[in-house]
């Protein structure tokens, strides 16, 4: 694992670096959901669209489980952020 890459930001929404992700995977936080809980990765406005793949690859590198077999984490609605006022009026008409 190249040390100089550690400062690269993997989750832009929550400003989490590759180094932080590797550090917590090393501590046993080996599922996407646990990394999300401890680092907030995937909780930003893009809901993980920008960082999930890269994080799953890091988990795969540590656990030797192919990316396709790793649980991608829980998806929670609404998939597209909606304004409170729109929701209060009964939704996107």
């Amino acid at each position: 694992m190249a040390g100089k890459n550690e400062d690269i930001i993997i989750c832009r929404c929550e400003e989490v670096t590759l180094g932080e992700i590797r550090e917590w995977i090393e501590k046993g936080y080996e599922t996407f959901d646990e990394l999300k809980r401890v680092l907030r990765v995937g909780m930003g406005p893009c809901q993980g669209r920008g960082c999930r793949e890269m994080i799953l690859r890091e988990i795969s590198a540590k656990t030797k489980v192919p990316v396709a077999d790793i649980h991608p984490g829980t998806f929670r609605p609404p998939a597209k952020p909606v304004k409170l006022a729109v929701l209060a009026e009964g939704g996107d008409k």
Partner: protein
Amino acid sequence: MFWRRTADVVVIGAGVQGCSIAYNLAKMGVKDIVVLEKGTICSGSTGRCGAGIRAQWGTEMNCRFGLAAVEKFEQLHDELGMDCGLNQSGYLMVAYKDSEFEQLQKSMKLQNSLGINTRVVTYDEAKEICPGLAAEDAVGFTFHERDGHADPFLTTFAYMEAAKRLGVEFLRFTEVTDVKTVAGRVAGVATNRGDIDAPVVVNAAGGYSQFIAKMAGVEIPNLSERHEILITEPVEPGVCPPMLMSFSGNYYIQQRPHGSIIGGCSPEGHPQDYDLGNSWDFLEMMSRTFVRLLPRTKGVRVVRQWSGLYNMTPDRQPVLCEADNVKGFFLSCGYSGHGFMFGPISGELLAQLILGQEPWIPIGMLHYSRFERGELLIEPAVV
């Protein structure tokens, strides 16, 4: 893979309760502790909660638990060596009915007598505490500035990491399928990965605690109710600094330090499904509460909604005790909507009970036998 066959203590469930109990036992010198979690750490109610912490309660016991919790959270970072995301901006309680305001004031007198400095605030003061608040229809407010909220994930992980340093083992994806008893004593557990013999087993299984109790032959009347909650995109700080909470208004709303606003309410009826689904009705109702109470959130976007289980007892107060008919089997469950804030304290008190010490806050009345005797604990300030 190595499988341990024995332990001194088995804790079932890695939510805030299980992690706090394990940590406190280890801190008091217990050596061989294992925490079993059927999913991942903090995947139950703890990871889904509003994470509010308050001392504004209506019974002496809960005031003492609440104040102890506030004080504990204030030094938890130092004790556990990890930031728990504590934010103390107070709870602003909003009453919309005269009777409700009278009750808040009655509770406030009790709180004041116990060293909790809750005060009545005017609408103008309320708007200073929460700029942009629109509550013309409210009849009164109380405020306690040491109340607040913390990060439920970080708090639970902080307990786990501190417990691990003291030698506690955590096994994920390990589901307890049976609790073994011999002649009125607990003997261990069976799991999907093998059996573990242990003289002490703790049921901290949150929304599933009634099933674990049943495995041990212990009957508790607990039920699990699905509650929904949502979170917005991060916005500038100061949109909702305190936890806004109202019993009759049926809401709690708070802004996390990173800017997102969290809001939830009690469901209609008592949904008892374990699917943890989300409803459109909740989203619409909660959004209406937001824009009515905090008009400037109109353009703020909701990014996620989810739900979690409230483990309920007939009086919405916890079960924290040793089973009568199964010695060595301890229970910490039934926390309704306040099991996160009580976690640091109940974990300490149960650890004392397990070690045969006198819990420093009396918990005798939290035995489940109170339900049979009809001695319910009536707490007016509960959701």
